[in-house]
């Protein structure tokens, strides 16, 4: 048996023994995702068991080095782990901006102390991170941000406001873009980390059309941030931010994938609409739309696999995450349009028990932000045009 085959059979056995049955059910609403953090009281016992078991092995971040809490797996081994998890339909043990965004940025730009301090806690789900990027007047034009950080010798004094800070009200720490030089737009931004319990930090959830409040306004009033929490060079935070945005886009693009195996969209449509005597969905036009969506969705799953493989081999175009983000989020929006069309009036119930508190409608509304957050679809198309297709500037 080759090393990889041995690894596969050991992984299969370990997952079988350690992944609780509840964690092999498809994710049905936002509550099913585990985010970790200091306050773990909202987690079910199965969620906690699964996160802790995977975290202890470093398999929440299988390809990070072991010394920083990762699994130290090769690209091929990490792929085997993904395949074996998909085989038993295991849920992702931990959804985390620390894993998908800050971690890669720290691995590239962080000091040894910063890596040792923060990465293992991210891997084990002990600290929950949020991202302080957008401001009321710096959305798609992010580099015009104004939150200031004044040099006070041993610390920065941070003042200003962030907006669309995802889950800031639940986060333990924030990674934040601040202005350290007012005379230079892109080269006057720095990347800092600080504890959300630092005096002067406050958050206020924003109620969205979905009735959810995943985003917050976040205010900084004379917040003292120790100098050692600067990541990368002073005034060079834009490089870190861009690198991290690539990873954010990659993460958001995964939304286009849906889940493996049983397809809730198809099952839902069959349940409400029924099949005709030939075994076809009784609404032929909706059936055609679902079938075409399925073609794109399965093709995009292949593209995601290809993208990950190319990324690991260092062959992906640096702007490729923009394409993944664009396609994945547009696909996710059409998935939820089809779910709503399939469910009919059942899916319009907002608070009923059988709609699980209006989950289909709320999730559908939530997806409308997919093509806005993390850089709008139009921004992604601009990036593809200029950096990949090399079309001329205006």
């Amino acid at each position, binding site marked *: 048996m080759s090393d990889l085959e041995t690894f596969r059979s050991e992984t299969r056995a370990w997952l079988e023994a350690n992944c609780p049955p509840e964690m092999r059910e498809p994710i049905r609403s936002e509550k099913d995702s585990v985010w970790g953090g200091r306050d773990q009281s909202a987690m079910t016992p199965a969620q906690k068991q699964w996160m802790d078991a995977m975290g202890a092995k470093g398999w929440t971040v299988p390809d990070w080095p072991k010394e920083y809490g990762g699994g130290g797996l090769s*690209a091929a081994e990490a792929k085997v782990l993904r395949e074996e998890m998909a085989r038993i339909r295991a849920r992702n043990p931990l959804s985390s901006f620390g894993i998908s965004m800050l971690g890669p940025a720290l691995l590239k730009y962080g000091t040894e102390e910063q890596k040792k301090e923060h990465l293992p806690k991210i891997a084990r789900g002990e600290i929950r991170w949020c991202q302080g990027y957008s401001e009321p007047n710096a959305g798609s034009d992010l580099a015009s941000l104004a939150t200031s950080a004044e040099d006070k010798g041993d610390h920065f004094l941070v003042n200003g406001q962030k907006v669309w800070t995802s889950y800031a009200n639940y986060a333990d720490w924030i990674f934040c873009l601040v202005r350290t030089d007012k005379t230079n737009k892109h080269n006057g931004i720095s990347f800092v980390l600080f504890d959300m319990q630092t005096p002067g930090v406050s958050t206020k959830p924003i109620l969205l059309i979905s009735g959810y409040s995943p985003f917050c306004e976040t205010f900084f009033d004379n917040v003292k941030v120790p100098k050692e929490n600067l990541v990368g060079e002073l005034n060079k935070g834009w490089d870190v931010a861009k690198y991290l945005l690539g990873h954010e886009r990659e993460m958001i693009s995964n939304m286009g994938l849906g889940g493996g195996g049983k397809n809730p969209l198809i099952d839902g449509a069959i349940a409400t609409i029924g099949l005709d005597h030939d075994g076809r969905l009784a609404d032929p036009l909706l059936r055609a739309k679902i*079938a075409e969506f399925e073609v794109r969705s*399965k*093709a995009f799953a*292949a*593209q995601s696999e290809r993208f990950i493989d190319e990324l690991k081999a260092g062959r992906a175009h640096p702007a490729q995450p923009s394409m993944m983000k*664009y396609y994945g989020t547009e696909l996710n929006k059409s998935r939820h349009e089809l779910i709503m069309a399939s469910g009919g009036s059942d899916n319009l119930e907002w608070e009923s028990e059988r709609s699980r508190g209006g989950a289909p409608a709320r999730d559908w509304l939530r997806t409308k932000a997919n093509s806005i957050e993390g850089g709008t679809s139009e921004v992604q198309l601009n990036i593809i045009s200029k950096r990949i*297709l090399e079309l*001329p500037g*205006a």
Partner: protein
Amino acid sequence: MPLFLNDDQTMLRDTARDFVADAAPVSHMRKLRDSKDETGFSRDLWKQFADMGFTGILVGEDHGGLGLGHVEAGVVLEEIGRNLSPSPFLQTAVAAVEALKGTPHAERWFPGIVAGETVAALALDEGAKFRASVSMKAERSGNGFKLTGAKQFVHHGHVADFVIVSARTAGAADDQDGVTLFAVPKDAAGMTARAERLTDASLAARIEFDGVEVDADAVIGEVDAGRKPLDRLLRAGRAGAAAEMLGVGAGAMDMTIGYIKERKQFGTLIGSFQALQHRAAHLYSEMEVARAAVLKAQQLLDAGDDKADAAVSVAKAMTGLATMLSVQEGIQMHGGIGMTDEYDIGFYMKRQRVLAELFGDANYHADRLAQAAGY
């Protein structure tokens, strides 16, 4: 296996890219069309394909081939698509070879295919749209069978050295069992092929089988169980058609992006207009997704994976959707010049339409996936 070309495959692609662009660029097709060439492709080019080893790409080394897989065949097909090169490669070296693999027919036909002397045709369609059903009759007669019926959309049917024909030896049109696949030599009495020039200038035949007598050894695989070699043929043909179509879409896209980088209107390069940039970037995204779907299908086919069949349908449907967008955007972004016969972009639109129909169009394959998923 990572989902990108390995070093050997990349090398083969570079070789194929240079060779096809040099030996059979779009002007080669245009010349054949303008001279109303009656074969539909160049025999000389087919021989050159053999010299490169391409005709034996899927043929095992025991038969003098290269013994490579669908990824490698697809690499060559993509370049054929990119250059709109008329060639019997897809039907002969890919689909027919897969159907005949492991049967006694391999001994008879593979040497000629490897040598670039033999051409195969596939007589499968009985109507204007590809369907899984087979109505054409094959009745037992003496030591063999008698074939009666008609087929259409048979590329190279009028010049092929043999024709692979699906016919019914038992049951009703839609039955899975009762289909038998035959290899019929071109000189069989009672077989009449009438070539028609198609929109893309390729030649496809309508073939009448008027009680064509064949020996029992013309059967490919087993009597009544022809779905097996037929499915092999279709899987390979569909993955191949998807790869060729990918080349057509990529060729059209490259031509279009190149054009909008040079064309000036309103005193500026039109490629700087955001309206066109966004459409170009969207097109690029669709083509990338299609490319991944094709490679996934090819790799699964090569691995003999159970999921290959569904992946092939995804690839054929997805390339159908993406390359249609590519050729349509190609004409639109070229503007008036895109409508002229003198300019090449229109040829891409025509070729895409033909490949989209071959072995089932995007709707057919989306429907196939839907049925398999139980809705």
